Structures are given as structure tokens and as C-alpha cells.
């Protein structure tokens, strides 16, 4: 019955222990939820199971035999299929070709028998209740259909274990229901399904057993979900100690808003968004994945065209055409994608922290010295306790937490009056996370307006003063934060689902 067993797997990366003796058991004919907050180690565990990373310690067995896959290809051949968050399809190819991509012919010069491909593929499509012509190009499918094609591809390899990484992240609720119906069917056929999701409603809807990871350790190992309720699971995910906020609610500053959106619409798809942040206030922006939060931040910074409404900074209506203009107005943005959008990994700590102040520090001819930059950013880096051998160190070599501090430091050095912080605690350790929360508060105390974007509810309740709730590129409402987790989270969820929760 045991299809896949993970026993005491540990994995360290430079500076952080990602997994510490983690265990999990997937059983044929059941759906198993793998839960945890961002950075708890879920994706690392999946990467170890599928051979992208090698475990430092521990063992993985499939149907009793120990396995150690060298790459995802081997894993697939061994009966472990994965549907990743990113689409892994050749979009110009047909559905049939994508499902059968590794079996187009016996050798390089074999003729591709499209009829046979279509026949074989339609067998899997039928099993997925997917009524499409197998010769349709994938580019013509909806996102939900693409997801099902990927599942079909995994199934066609005779996968006995199927891992789905956030499969509903980009699906509508009704599309998700279709997916669940198929997952139940596969479960009844005896497939062992691993299901990673942020949405607890879904987990309780479809899963039988659950493994929760917290800080790289098992908060629970393969427990039946029937014995647990929602609160138990939340407790395991975030840990009891953290649920009680250390901070008292702060009085709202009386100053007029520094930053305001009035019926703002953007080419990215935002409609009639209105919100305002006062100096010294921390406004949270909450929403599920795909709600359009980071997109809002980027649109406001000039990366998407404004199609309606008004942006006001310091009480005056403004047009922002680029991040450079936003910076001139005193608006800064800390990206959630630190490596892709936040930092220049190839360059030094000094260059990364100083990038926002070069222009203001240079003399009339545009000249500036490292010493000048160091004088400006050095104190900020020191204040933030950035741990680095020297300012000259390549930033790619620092730990995630220190990298994150630098990406905040550059905006502090630039003296911004509004700081938009997007998912500040992705991939950093608990200690730095707490430190960053303190820092955000200190900034607010000093009069900076903060717009905090996070999908971590605990973080939201712990840090924000008010929470604006976003769903489908609109603001659904505003929740005052009194640090009462139950009340605030219920209110937020009610706004997202547009109904009073029980």
C-alpha cells in the first residue's frame, strides 16, 4: 500500500538548514496534503524527491525499494510524476505530441506516427475527462486544460505517484473543482497523490492525510486529516507561539495620506483600485496568489500603463512613467523575487546597496567614488546588521536573510517616503524575519509610509495596521487590524469569498 516513503531526509544549503530529518508517507489510493508556510521546506522536499537536489541524509523508498533519482527524467521513468507550477509544455506542439514527447519514435530518424500518438494520447485525455482533439496545439488551450495535459503526461508514464505543486494557483474555483473530480478518480484507481497548496479549504476538500512542515521540520508526519480541524492545521503551520502578536495595535497617525490611489486602473488589469497610506502607517495588501498585488505595485511604479483614475503622492496628482520617476517622488519597491528583480547577484554588496543613491551622490560631471557611496550606505548596512566579510563581497554569496536586508537597505539609503515591500520573508530564516518585522515598524515610527504585500496571514496580522484585501485585481475591502488573528483572518477570508464565513 505504501507507494512512496520519505524517511529522515535532511538537506543543508550554505547558511541554512532547509530540511531537518523530514519524513512523509504517500499511500496508493489516497490524496496527501503537503503543507507549510513559504520557506518551510516544501519545495526543497519536492526537489529532493524528483532528483533535482540530492539529500544530505535520509532515505526515499518507492514500494519498498530505496530510490535515489539523479534527475527528474529518472524519477519519471521510476513512476514518480510531477506537475510543476511552471508550465512545462512545448506550446506550439499538439496535445498528443506533448503527452508523448519522449516516445515520438524508436530512433532519431523514425517517422512520427501521428495517428498512433493521437490514439494513445486520447486514451489519457479520456481518463481525464478532457474532451479536446489530441491534435490541438497546446497554445490554444486554457490554463486549466494545460494543467490537465501535464497531468496526462505524467500519467502516461504509468506514474504510481503523482505530485502536484500548487495546481490550483492559476485556476478559477470551478476549474479547480474539475481538477478535484479527476484527482478523486485517479485516487480511486490506486494512484498515490501528493498535493501542495496554500488554500486550506481545498486541502480539507480533497485530501485524506497531511504532512505539515515548519522551519524545515515535521510539524506532523502523515496524519489522517479526519482527526484534525482547520485550527489544528493552522497551529501546526505557524506554531502556537507565533500566533499571539508581540505588538499592540498602533494608533493611526493623523497626517494626511502620503500616497493615494483613486479609482486607479491599469493596463495590467486593475480596476478602480482605491487605497491610501499615511506617513507612519503600515498598510497591508492581502490577496491570494494571482490576485494582482505585486502587479499593482509594479503598475503603479510605471511598468504598466495607467488607464484610469489618479495617483497622488504628497497630496498632488502625479504621473509615474518609470521606477526612476517613482524614486524621484520618494517611492521605493522591494521585490518578492530577490534574485530576479531585487538584486544584481554578480555585483558587490556596496554596488547593490548604493544603486539607488548613485545619481544623488555624483558630482556635476557624474563622477563618484566608492568611498562616497560607502559613507552613505555603510551606516544603513551597519544599522541593519548585514553580515558580510566586506562591502566588496559579491552579494550572491550572502545568505538569503542578508540579501533581503540589502534590498531593503538600498531604499532606506535613498530616503524613500513610501516603501512598498513585497513578500519580505520569502526564503529567509525565522530570526531575520522577526528582525525585518521590527525594522518595518521602526521605519513606520520614523514616519515612512509602508505598503506591505504578503500572502502570509500571520505576518500580515503581526505587522500591518490596516489590511486592504485584493481579489481579481480589485480591492474588496479594508480590515482594521486589532492583532486578533481569528477575527482578522476571518474578516479577510470573508471579503475574498464575498460571504460571511461560518
Amino acid at each position: 500500500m505504501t507507494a512512496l516513503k520519505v524517511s529522515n531526509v535532511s538537506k543543508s544549503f550554505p547558511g541554512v538548514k532547509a530540511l531537518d530529518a523530514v519524513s512523509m508517507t504517500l499511500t496508493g489510493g489516497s490524496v496527501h496534503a503537503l503543507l507549510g508556510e513559504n520557506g518551510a521546506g516544501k519545495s526543497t522536499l519536492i526537489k529532493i524527491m524528483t532528483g533535482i537536489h540530492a539529500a544530505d541524509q535520509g532515505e526515499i523508498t518507492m514500494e519498498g525499494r530505496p530510490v535515489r533519482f539523479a534527475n527528474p527524467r529518472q524519477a519519471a521513468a521510476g513512476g514518480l510524476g510531477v506537475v510543476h507550477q511552471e508550465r512545462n509544455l512545448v506550446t506550439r506542439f499538439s496535445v498528443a505530441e506533448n503527452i508523448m514527447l519522449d516516445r515520438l519514435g524508436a530512433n532519431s530518424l523514425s517517422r512520427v506516427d501521428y495517428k498512433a500518438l493521437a490514439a494513445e494520447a486520447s486514451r489519457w485525455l479520456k481518463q481525464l475527462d478532457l474532451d479536446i482533439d489530441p491534435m490541438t496545439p497546446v497554445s490554444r488551450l486554457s490554463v486549466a486544460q494545460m494543467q490537465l495535459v501535464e497531468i496526462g503526461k505524467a500519467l502516461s508514464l504509468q506514474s504510481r505517484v503523482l505530485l502536484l505543486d500548487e495546481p490550483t494557483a492559476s485556476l478559477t474555483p470551478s476549474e479547480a473543482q474539475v481538477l478535484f473530480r479527476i484527482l478523486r478518480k485517479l485516487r480511486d484507481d490506486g494512484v498515490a497523490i501528493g498535493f501542495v497548496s496554500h488554500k486550506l479549504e481545498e486541502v480539507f476538500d480533497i485530501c485524506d492525510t497531511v504532512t505539515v512542515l515548519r522551519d524545515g521540520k515535521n510539524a506532523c508526519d502523515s496524519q489522517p486529516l479526519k482527526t484534525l480541524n482547520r485550527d489544528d492545521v493552522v497551529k501546526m503551520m505557524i506554531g502556537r507561539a507565533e500566533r499571539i502578536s508581540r505588538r499592540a495595535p498602533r494608533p493611526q497617525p493623523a497626517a494626511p495620506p502620503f500616497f493615494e490611489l483613486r479609482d486607479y486602473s491599469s493596463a495590467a488589469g486593475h480596476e478602480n483600485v482605491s487605497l491610501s497610506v499615511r506617513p507612519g502607517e503600515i498598510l497591508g495588501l492581502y490577496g491570494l496568489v494571482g490576485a494582482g498585488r505585486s502587479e499593482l505595485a509594479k503598475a503603479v511604479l510605471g511598468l504598466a500603463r495607467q488607464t484610469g483614475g489618479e495617483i497622488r503622492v504628497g497630496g498632488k496628482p502625479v504621473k509615474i512613467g518609470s521606477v526612476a520617476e517613482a524614486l524621484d517622488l520618494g517611492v521605493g519597491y522591494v521585490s518578492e523575487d530577490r534574485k530576479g528583480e531585487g538584486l544584481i547577484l554578480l555585483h558587490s554588496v556596496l554596488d547593490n546597496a548604493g544603486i539607488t543613491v548613485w545619481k544623488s551622490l555624483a558630482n556635476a560631471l557624474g563622477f563618484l567614488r566608492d568611498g562616497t557611496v560607502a559613507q552613505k550606505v555603510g551606516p544603513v548596512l551597519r544599522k541593519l546588521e548585514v553580515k558580510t566579510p566586506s562591502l566588496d563581497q559579491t552579494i550572491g554569496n550572502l545568505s538569503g536573510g542578508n540579501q533581503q536586508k540589502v534590498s531593503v537597505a538600498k531604499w532606506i539609503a535613498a530616503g524613500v517616503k513610501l516603501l512598498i515591500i513585497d513578500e519580505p520573508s520569502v526564503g529567509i530564516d525565522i530570526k531575520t524575519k522577526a528582525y525585518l518585522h521590527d525594522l518595518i515598524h521602526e521605519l513606520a515610527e520614523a514616519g515612512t509610509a509602508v505598503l506591505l504585500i504578503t500572502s502570509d496571514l500571520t505576518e500580515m496580522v503581526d505587522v500591518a495596521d490596516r489590511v486592504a484585501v485584493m481579489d481579481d485585481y480589485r480591492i474588496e475591502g479594508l480590515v482594521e487590524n486589532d492583532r486578533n488573528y481569528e477575527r482578522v483572518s476571518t474578516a479577510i477570508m470573508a471579503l475574498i469569498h464575498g460571504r460571511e464565513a461560518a
Partner: protein
Amino acid sequence: MNRLFDNDWVGPALVCLVAVVGISILQPSFLSPFNILVLLSAIAVNMVIALGQLVIIAIGQMNLALGAFGGLVAICFVAVMELYGVPPVIALLIGLAIGTAAGAASGFVIARTGISAFIITLAGLQIFKGINLGITEAQPFYGVPQSVKDFGNHAIFGPIPWLIVPMIIASVGMWYLFNRLRIGRYILAVGGNRTAAELSGINITATIIWAHAISGLLAAIAGMMLVARLQIGQPTIGDDWLISSFAAPVIGGAVLAGGHVSVAGTFFGVVIIAIITQALVLFAIDPFVVQIVLGALILWAVGINRYREIRVAKLNEAR
């Protein structure tokens, strides 16, 4: 109607038609049998050259050494016939082998080191060109057998040159490869989404080597066709292939990032370039204007392809 215009070759084909009609009204000698023969010979060679680049574009890379492969094969082809009296058929096979081997070697280095194809083929260009000039000392070989010369300037019937035969074989072969053979589909899959191809168990290294070997093979065919057409083994063969080898596929709607090419579109791209070149000669315009036109054509085609991409993206979004 819209569906028809989604085909890559329809636009270029229409341009060809308009150009032929327009030019022949202005200059009736454009459709003279001799002129057609010249035109078709040029198209035949340039099509094979373009196919050599097309297969590399399909995998999302580029081959700067295409002309150097072709030039080296061309002079080796003549050299073995002139110096060692090898019969043309054997010399042909030797030429094909050299081209394929050179392509496979550069594909191997690119696939195994992961260094950009640009830099590896730039080095290859220099190495093969250097060997070419080292052997010939920049002097042509004149000992081309009569049979080869005849192939290059005789017609099958009417204004149809023999040179069209290898072009048809190569074009149909490449169409078949991209649409029906496993290796062709793998080349397009790697070009279209390398991660997906890799996760699906496609051997990336082998696929890249295949693509470059085919490119070398086509360059060899084109080089030897040029020997037949020029009637001598010129060491400068291949020097001017670079621009047109990219222009024709791009006009034909190839996506430079890889994953999508059109053999028919490339053919009409080649025809457009040949017609314009020929028209400039007929109207006694400075032949160097061809360079300007070629460059402008590339930019124009890139612009159109970009526009179509954006339109397709919008359509998909709307759906």
C-alpha cells in the same frame, strides 16, 4: 481568411507575386527564359544555404560558420578532383562527409560546454576559413570536371536548371524532417521549450549535435552547388552567406528564439531576395544597394514577426 494569413508563407508568397507582376510590367525581359534560368539557379543555391541556417534557428541558436563550412567543402571538393583525380561522385561524398563532420564537431562543443553557439561558431568560422585559405593560398582551383560544370549551367528543359534538383531534395527533406521525423520534432521541442524537452527525457546534447551536423551537411551541398555554378573552386565561396542565410528564414516567419520555422516561408524569402537582386541588375542600379535592401528586409520581417507574436499573445489572452 484570417486563418490563411496565419500561415507563414502566405505573406511572402503574395509579396513575390506582386514583385514578379510589377517588375515584368516595367521590364518585360524579366520573364525571358535566360533571366528565369539565372533567377532559379540563384534561388536553388540560396535556398540550401538558408535551410542550413534554418535548422540552427529552429533549435534557438545561430551558425556564423555556415559560410566557412561551405567554402572549405567547396575547395576540398575541387581539390581532390584536380589533385588526386578522384571521380566527382566520390568527391561529392567526401565533401558531404567533411561538412557533416565539421557541423557535428561544432555541435558537440556547443552542447558539451554550454558556451553560446555564437562564440563557438565564430571560432569555427575563423578556423575553417583559415584552413581554406591555408590550403588554397587564396588562389582558386580551376580543375572542375566537365560533368560538374554541365550540372551547374545546363537546364533540364526550358529555363529549369539542374541545380534546382538538389534544392528540391533538400527542401522536401527538411520539410519532412521538421514535420514527420522524430529528430526534427526534437529540434523544435528543444528550441521551443528547452526545460520541458529536458524534463520529458529528450537527449539535449544529441539533438544539438544532430542540428549542427545537418546544418554542416546543407552547407556542404550549397558549397558544391556553387562550385558547379561558378565553374571554379573559389576560396571566397561562403564569404557572403551570413546576411542572406538569416534574412530568408526570418522573412519566412522563423522565430529567432527557436521552436518555430517554416520551410515554405523560407523558400519565398529566398525568392524575394533573388527577385530584388535581379531587379536591381535589370534596372542597372548599383548592386551594392542589395546590401541595404537585405538589411531593411530583415528589419521589416523582424517587425512583422514581432507584431504577429503580440497579436497571437493578445488572442490567447482574450480566450
